[in-house]
């Protein structure tokens, strides 16, 4: 908090942003009244359930639709034979953020868990049983599963449209001059987002108008996509997505069953609801693919990194191209004279991977931080000292300056709180009773992208205001943080602000992803408010009856619902008085949020994460006993919400390091753990002590508000910190995530 009072960004935020106010949607959430898509029940609603493929490759030879239809309550069964037409093939990439999907276009099966029919019934129980009774017969082919399941290939792009490789500096020269090098291979497992809210949709047609309730991270884009596939105008569609029960990347992109439900609702002229079962979330809605990463660090005689080579082999699907850009996580963290990052991929019979909280960065950071720790130990150096020796003062991949980088302060604050200075260099030297104790660290880094957003602000005659943008709140706190920014843009108290959001008939707020939503939508909202205030100021300063008349070049400042003359604060006027005299009911402003032009600086959030683990030497069970991170994330809009986001990210790091792993049977391609009893995510008892600090950081370049992002940063650094702590405890270097107990004995 004290840090925030001293921020000197070039946009002045007023008294709303920077405060730890509780969530504006909090009462709705703690009373169970916050409406999620599956809570909707329009009159006459039918329930839909998808039947999913029990093979991973081949075709569906037969579905017993008669048995399903004979089940009491079943209304209709959709298969490729009778699926109503779409205006666009589900395999068409209608834009860069569209995935090829399965909407019963044919009888092909390309992964286990793929939807192969949709059963619609009066009750959920009947629809569920109807789907089971379809009892499919298949013509199956041998599936290709896992990192060694197929021949690797060179992808043309990685992530979403990014180049697959980068070379900076002279690798050969750098290697030739190096004193030593270190090779390491790290494998990471397939992970599934598993938002607690299963993907759901409720669709209802009113003539040619369509209303959809579905959680979505990019509401405006979703409207466009639905319109394209359905062959109708976007203006005919209203999407409501006020609350997402977690998204993490899996709710940014359309999936086939959403289209099927909309088609069924039109075909049957009834509202239709579908919620995926937990097991059905393993496949059609994205995942973080398994990777095998090969790193080589060349070090000069002083221990500085001369060359960094990071190659990633990632699992991909057979029918679309999302390649986990893990090697790119090495671009900008540590100084090096030369670097090369490359990717290859292996096409397997799984659903298409997609962005999952810190896509690329999470697995890439895990591998990089393990390699860095190995290098530090090989040199006999403290891991923090080694990182400081290789501190990147400019971005080594581009040579650009950083827009801001308070990473040294992060290391210092977190190391201090953690007690890092007492760490012995050698592993397996610390004990707590019978248990082995180890300390490890990692560097957190995540880029600060901005997308496109628009917003409206309307100031009303009574001095209250309404602001509008179709932002998505998936738990990060958009309802609160964006309102805080908007209130400051308008110069009013937040209690006088009504925030309309979460549906598609509002100005497009872009995507809630990439940790860029608060910066992007926040900028749009702030600008809309500022536009409104500018109009208000024009009214007042041109009105001889106003105490602000003739302020001219001195200008005015807006705060607390009044305008003040900058050159004489005793002269001010309330918004409602300005409007009343002008005879206006309202003043309306517009704003946009986007980054202007090509970035001239490297823009990242940073952090240092320190972990203490206890390991049972006989049984290998690991406990993350303490986890401390300090983060530099630019201006913090709401410290309490930012802390929650950072802690959440760090706990995702715990899951990545110790728990999360989706397993296929290689013979059938089916999962053996597609439920929450088998696919482990951390429980409360796994998190004994965790803290996230933030350090002061003023960034005048990242955007006008100085806001970076907090949503994904915490995952990075943490995985490596835990793995390095496990090594320090046991002397066994983890090269595979998650770290299993039996690998340590």
């Amino acid at each position, binding site marked *: 908090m004290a840090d925030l009072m001293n921020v000197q960004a070039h946009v002045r935020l007023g008294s709303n942003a920077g405060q730890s106010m509780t969530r504006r949607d909090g009462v709705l959430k703690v009373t169970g009244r916050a409406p999620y898509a599956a809570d909707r029940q329009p009159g006459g609603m039918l329930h839909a359930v998808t039947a999913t493929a*029990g093979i991973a490759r081949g075709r569906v030879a037969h579905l017993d639709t008669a048995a399903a239809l004979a089940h*009491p309550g079943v209304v209709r069964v959709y298969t490729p034979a009778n699926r109503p037409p779409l205006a666009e093939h589900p395999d068409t990439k209608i834009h860069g953020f569209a995935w090829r999907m399965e909407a019963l276009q044919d009888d092909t099966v390309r992964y286990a868990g793929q939807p192969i029919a949709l059963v619609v019934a009066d009750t959920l*129980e009947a629809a*569920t*049983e109807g789907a*089971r009774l379809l009892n499919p017969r298949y013509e199956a082919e041998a599936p290709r599963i896992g990192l060694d399941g197929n021949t690797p290939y060179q992808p043309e792009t990685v992530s979403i449209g990014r180049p697959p490789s980068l070379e900076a500096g002279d690798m050969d020269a750098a290697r030739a001059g190096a004193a030593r090098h270190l090779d390491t291979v790290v494998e990471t497992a397939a992970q599934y987002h598993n938002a607690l809210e299963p993907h759901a949709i409720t669709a209802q047609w009113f003539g040619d108008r369509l209303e959809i309730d579905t959680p979505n991270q990019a509401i405006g884009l979703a409207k466009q996509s639905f319109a394209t596939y359905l062959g109708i105008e976007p203006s005919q569609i209203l999407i409501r997505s006020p609350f997402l029960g977690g998204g993490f990347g899996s709710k940014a992109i359309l999936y086939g069953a959403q289209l099927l439900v909309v088609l069924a609702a039109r075909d049957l002229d009834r509202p239709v609801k579908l919620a995926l079962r937990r097991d059905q979330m393993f496949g059609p809605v994205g995942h973080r693919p398994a990777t095998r990463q090969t790193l080589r660090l060349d070090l000069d005689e002083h221990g500085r990194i001369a060359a960094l080579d990071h190659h990633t082999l990632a699992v991909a699907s057979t029918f679309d191209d999302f390649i986990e850009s893990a090697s790119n996580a090495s671009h900008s963290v540590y100084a090096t004279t030369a670097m090369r990052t490359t990717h290859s991929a292996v096409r397997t019979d799984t659903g298409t991977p997609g962005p999952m909280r810190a896509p690329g960065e999470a697995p890439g950071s895990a591998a990089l931080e393990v390699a860095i720790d190995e290098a530090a130990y090989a040199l006999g150096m403290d891991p923090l000292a080694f990182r400081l020796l290789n501190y990147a003062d400019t971005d080594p991949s581009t040579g650009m300056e950083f827009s801001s980088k308070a990473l040294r302060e992060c290391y210092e604050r977190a190391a201090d709180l953690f007690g890092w200075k007492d760490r012995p260099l050698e592993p397996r030297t610390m004990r*707590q*009773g*019978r*248990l082995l104790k180890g300390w490890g660290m990692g560097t957190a880094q995540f880029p600060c992208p901005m997308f496109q957003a628009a917003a409206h602000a309307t100031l009303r005659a009574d001095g209250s205001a309404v602001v509008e943008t179709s932002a998505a709140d998936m738990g990060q706190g958009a309802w609160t943080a964006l309102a805080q920014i908007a209130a400051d843009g308008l110069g009013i108290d937040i209690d006088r602000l009504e925030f309309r959001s979460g549906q598609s008939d509002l100005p497009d707020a872009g995507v809630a992803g990439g940790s860029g939503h608060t910066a992007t939508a926040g900028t749009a909202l702030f600008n809309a408010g500022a536009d409104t205030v500018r109009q208000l100021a024009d009214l007042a300063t041109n009105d001889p009856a106003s105490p602000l008349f003739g302020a001219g070049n001195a200008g005015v400042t807006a705060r607390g619902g009044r305008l003040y003359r900058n050159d004489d604060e005793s002269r001010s006027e309330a918004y409602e008085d300005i409007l009343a005299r002008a005879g206006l009911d309202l003043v309306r402003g517009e704003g946009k949020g986007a980054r202007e032009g090509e970035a001239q600086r490297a823009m990242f959030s940073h952090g240092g994460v320190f972990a203490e683990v*206890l390991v*049972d030497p*006989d*049984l*290998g*069970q690991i*406990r993350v*006993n303490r986890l401390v991170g300090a983060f530099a994330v630019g201006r913090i809009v709401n410290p309490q919400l930012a802390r929650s986001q950072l802690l959440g990210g760090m706990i995702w790091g715990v899951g990545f390091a*110790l*728990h999360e792993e989706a*397993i296929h*049977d290689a*013979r*059938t391609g*089916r999962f*053996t*753990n597609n439920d929450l*009893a*088998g696919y*482990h995510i*951390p*429980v*409360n*008892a*796994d998190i004994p002590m965790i803290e996230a600090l933030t350090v002061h950081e003023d960034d005048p370049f990242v955007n006008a508000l100085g806001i970076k992002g907090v949503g994904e940063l915490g995952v990075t650094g943490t995985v490596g910190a835990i793995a390095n702590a496990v090594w320090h405890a046991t002397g066994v270097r983890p090269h595979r995530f*998650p770290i*299993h*107990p*039996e690998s340590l*004995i």
Partner: protein
Amino acid sequence: MNLFDYTRADTLGAAVGAEGALLAGGTNLLDLMKIGVATPSRLVDVTRLPLSQIEDHGGGLRIGAMVRNADLARHPQVLARFPAVAEALLSGASAQLRNAATTGGNVMQSTRCSYFMDPLSPCNRREPGTGCSAIGGETRNHAILGWTSGCIATHPSDLCVALAAFDAVVEIAGPAGTREVPMATFHPLPDANGVPPALAAGEVITHIRLPDPGGMARHARYVKLRERTSFAFAIVSAAAGIAVQDNRIVAARLALGGVAARPWRSTGAEAALLGQPPIETNFARAAELALQGAAPSGNNAAKIVLARRIAVRALTLAAAGTPDRMPALPASVFEGDDHG
């Protein structure tokens, strides 16, 4: 889930011999019905049977089959005489599930073998003679003892491991009368074609009886290794009890969990401990005996090592004495060093 007829048995007479699947807490049966592994045409709800008492039984206890796991775990006499049973209960599932799940239901719960739980995979346990899909598949959690080419699944219960260790007896009522089976042998081991049912048609578990633990009451522990700190099935687990006089072991109990189709009681290991001082080398020898004949059923050789070590740990902790804690805590491998 298929349609079924629902009936309720309010008396034991109505339950015994009733056709259909017995529904108690529902935490396992309903789950299996949802995934299509159990497809009963009739459910007989036995939750109202008058079997919810925990009674004194000559220094031991007689536990009604409908006693909920949570109630059993916090019962003062369980804590006083069978603390390892309380520890085992609290090591399993979640507070919500323990409030619903019953003693009888826990004993009758199905394996968590992912192939058993996948109706598309052939499974001798589900359908005798169809084969075992787990063999050659993902077998990290599968059996290392007592398995056959017909089935390599394990029994997932924590409670049953502690019950088996402390000589529990299962009381069964059937159309042909009542019978008793020791907990340690209640769950049949697989043969080459499948696994015989533990109960005959129409039989109902009525009680679990635990005999007087004697000097082991305050020297009994349950230890569980799992991937998460809580709410996860065991990789391996062990229940142990020890009674010592003049630095010599006069009674010993040891059962392993997560290793076989039943809780793996090792009377051989127990016998080897008698008359010996309660020291780690002796525990290690006992553990060696307990794992005699163990063999990996797939990529799970590490479990043999882990099982041996957790047996040593349980015996060591039991010898040290059960901590005086009310209520009990789940048994953590970390406990005793960093807290508690």
